[in-house]
C-alpha cells in the first residue's frame, strides 16, 4: 500500500513549490517557486529533506490532511496556527518543530497569522511529475505538477520514500516584520513627476485584495507619470515595481509574466523579498530608497543569517 495524505480540505491556494525553474524567461515561462525562500528552506531542513525538495505552500487558510501509512515526520514554517489530531486528541502545533505522524493522524493547517504564506514539509519524497525540472505550480499558466492546478478536496498526495531519520528537530525563529520595504530606483524612475517620486518614497500604500502569486497591487496616492505611461515591452524580474497609467504601483512576484510594458519606478531589494510577500492585503507598506552596494551587503547578511538558522537545526 502506498503512503499518502488525503486532502480533506484543500485551503485557499495550496500548491506544490520548490526552488522554481530557471533559464526559461526567454520563452515566456515564469520562475515561480516558493514565495518565502527562508521559510521554504527551514521547512525542508526540519524534516531532514534536501533544501530544494518540494513542499506544500499554502496562503491564508491551509489544507486539512489525513495520513495513511508508515510513520513519517512533518514540519510547518511561517506564522501558522495548526493542529495535529492523534486518535481523537487535538494537539496545538508549533511552527519550526518537527512532528512524527502515524497512520490515521490528521494535520489541520487552520490559518496564517497576520501573514500570507505557510509551508508544510514532509520528510521524504513526494510522488510528483516535474515540469522543466521543477514541481512548482503556476496556476495562471497551468505549469507544474498536478497539471499546473492548485490542490483540491479529495485528492491524494502520494509519498515515494520516507526519511529514516525522524528524530525531533526544532529551532527558535520568529518571523520579523519589516517597517519599510527597501527599494532600488528603477530604469524609468524619471518618468514620474517630482511630486510622484516624493509620494513613492514618503507615503504609505495599502496592499490590495487583488494580490496573488503573480503580483502585489498597491493603493494609495496616485503616482503621476509625466513622460509616457507605456514603454516597449521588456523583461521583468521579481520585485520590479511597475506603475501603469492609473498611478497605482504593482510589484511583480514569483509567478509574474516575463515581459511587461509599464514603466518601472523601482525594484525591491532582494533582502526584503521574503518579508514583502508575507504582507497581507489591507496592511500598509512604505518604501525606502537604498543604494545597490548597500542592498548587496544587506542581502549577504540576510543569507548568512539564513545559513546560521539552517545550521542550528
Amino acid at each position, binding site marked *: 500500500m502506498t503512503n499518502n495524505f488525503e486532502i480533506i480540505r484543500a485551503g485557499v491556494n495550496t500548491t506544490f513549490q520548490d526552488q522554481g525553474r530557471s533559464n526559461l524567461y*526567454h*520563452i515566456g515561462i515564469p520562475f515561480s517557486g516558493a514565495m518565502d525562500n527562508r521559510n521554504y528552506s527551514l521547512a525542508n531542513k526540519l524534516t531532514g529533506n534536501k533544501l530544494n525538495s518540494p513542499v506544500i505552500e499554502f496562503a491564508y487558510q491551509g489544507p486539512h490532511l489525513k495520513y495513511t501509512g508508515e510513520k513519517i515526520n512533518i514540519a510547518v514554517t511561517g506564522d501558522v496556527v495548526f493542529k495535529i489530531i492523534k486518535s481523537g486528541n487535538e494537539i496545538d502545533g508549533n511552527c519550526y518543530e518537527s512532528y512524527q505522524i502515524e497512520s490515521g493522524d490528521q494535520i489541520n493547517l487552520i490559518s496564517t497569522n497576520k501573514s500570507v504564506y505557510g509551508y508544510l514539509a514532509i520528510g521524504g519524497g513526494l510522488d510528483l511529475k516535474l515540469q522543466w525540472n521543477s514541481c512548482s505550480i503556476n496556476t495562471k*499558466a497551468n505549469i507544474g505538477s498536478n497539471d499546473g492546478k492548485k490542490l483540491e478536496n479529495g485528492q491524494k498526495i502520494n509519498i515515494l520514500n520516507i526519511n529514516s531519520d525522524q528524530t525531533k528537530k526544532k529551532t527558535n525563529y520568529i518571523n520579523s516584520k519589516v517597517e519599510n520595504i527597501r527599494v532600488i530606483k*528603477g530604469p524609468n524612475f524619471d518618468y514620474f513627476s517630482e511630486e510622484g517620486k516624493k509620494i513613492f518614497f514618503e507615503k504609505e500604500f495599502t496592499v490590495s485584495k487583488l494580490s496573488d502569486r503573480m503580483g502585489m497591487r498597491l493603493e494609495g496616492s496616485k503616482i503621476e507619470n509625466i513622460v509616457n505611461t507605456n514603454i516597449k515591452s521588456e523583461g521583468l524580474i521579481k520585485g*520590479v515595481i511597475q506603475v501603469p497609467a492609473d498611478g497605482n504601483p504593482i510589484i511583480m512576484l514569483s509567478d509574474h509574466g516575463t515581459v511587461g510594458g509599464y514603466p518601472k519606478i523601482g525594484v525591491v531589494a532582494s533582502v526584503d523579498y521574503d518579508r514583502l510577500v508575507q504582507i497581507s492585503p489591507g496592511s500598509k507598506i512604505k518604501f525606502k530608497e537604498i543604494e*545597490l552596494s548597500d*542592498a548587496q551587503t544587506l542581502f549577504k547578511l540576510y543569507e548568512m543569517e539564513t545559513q546560521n538558522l539552517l545550521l542550528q537545526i
Partner: protein
Amino acid sequence: MIKNISNLGDAAVYCDFGSEVNKSVNSEVIKYFKALKKENVESINNLTPSYNKLIVSYDLRKTNFKEVKKLIENLNINEAQHKNNTKIEIPVCCDDQFSLDIKRLEEKLKINRDKILKNFFSKEYFCYMTGFIAGMPFLGDLDENMRVPRLETPRVKVPKGSVALTEQFANIYTFESPGGWNIIGNTPLDIFDNSKEVEPNVINPGDTVVFKPINIEEYNSYNDK
C-alpha cells in the same frame, strides 16, 4: 551595440540598446542573448531579450552586478553564429471560421481581403522576442499599410493557434488566453509544446518565419499525418 548597462535592482543587469524598435537593433539584442546563452554561466538564471533591451538575471548568492556587467562587456560577439538562424514555415488557414477580424482589418486598412492575405503571406518575418504567454512569438515587421491598433475591447478568450496582427507585429496565441490582437487566421501547428522538456518553442528569438496558406481541408487533416 549596447548603449548603456545599468542595474535592475540588485539581481539583474539591464542592457539598453536604445529606444528604437527595428530589426537591426533587435538583431544586436539577440546576438548578445545567444552569446550569453552559449557561455552557460552557472550564476546567471535567466536571459530576457525584448525589442531593444536584454535583461540578465543572476543569483545574488553566487555573483553580483559588477561581475555580470564585466562578463557582458567582455563577451565575444561572433557575427557568424547569428547568420545560421533557422527559417520556419508556419501553415495558416484563413477560412472565415478562423479569420475573426478580417472585416475589421478591411475597414481599418481600407484594403480588401485578398490583398491583405496576399501581403501577409508574401513576407518573411523576424522573431523579435517570445513571451507574454509561454512561447508567444512577436514577429515583424508588417508593411506600413498593414498596421492596425489593438481591438478597443480585448477578447476574453482568443482561440489557441490564432494568428493575429497589431501595429508592426504578427503573433501566434500558443494557448487559449485573453487578448486584443486582430485575428487573421489559425495554425494547426503546436507552436508551444509544454510536454517537451527541451526546446518547447517552435519559434525562437532571431528566427525567420514565413506563413504558408492552407485551406480548411488541409487544416483539418494536418494533425492526422
